């Protein structure tokens, strides 16, 4: 189990909440109207660059080694 420090939980909740908008469970999906699904899809495309920023944000806040990959 990863053990992020307490300060990181906020960042993870943020990312988890964000992704939950788009990756709904099979039970939840049929409850959405076609219009809501279209809106979510549009928002997903509109926020494409934000998504990359958030993935980077999450990665930087995860406890990790500072050695860059492929570096000597």
């Amino acid at each position, binding site marked *: 189990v990863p053990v992020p*420090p307490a300060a990181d939980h906020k960042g993870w909740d943020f990312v988890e909440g964000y992704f939950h908008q788009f990756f709904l469970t099979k039970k939840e999906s049929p409850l959405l109207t076609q219009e809501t699904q279209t809106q979510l899809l549009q928002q997903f495309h509109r926020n494409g660059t934000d998504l990359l920023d958030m993935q980077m944000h999450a990665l930087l806040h995860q406890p990790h080694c500072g*050695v860059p990959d492929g570096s*000597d």
Partner: protein
Amino acid sequence: TSISPGRCKWNKHTLTYRIINYPHDMKPSAVKDSIYNAVSIWSNVTPLIFQQVQNGDADIKVSFWQWAHEDGWPFDGPGGILGHAFLPNSGNPGVVHFDKNEHWSASDTGYNLFLVATHEIGHSLGLQHSGNQSSIMYPTYWYHDPRTFQLSADDIQRIQHLYGEKCSSDIP
């Protein structure tokens, strides 16, 4: 002269290590145990022998720093980057740094020094990051119980590719 030219490894099997300084929240004896256990993880599967020295130069130099510390790779305070180490064919072979601002421990509170040290010493022996999540050389930190921790097959294969297998005559 201890580095094999063109290969990212040490060209000798007996390596000295020295703990230069200590973090705030761990007893020196606990730090020594953690580093000893970390080097032992690698020596258990290779012919490598590690000897701790108290003074003078050493092949592997372990130290704790905070923020920028004049090696071009600044630390970032609590969380985020936990440590870094230089590969044998780099400009600072054997240099292993840990972020002094982390809460280091010998348990599951904060960051377990043994686990992070095993990863960083892996770098100082010549291993790069692994994409295998079960590998200790995976770049992000995952807690394992130190009492039952074992290297993954990926780790063993990669370190033995550099230094060979431990011969039965090497086993005390």
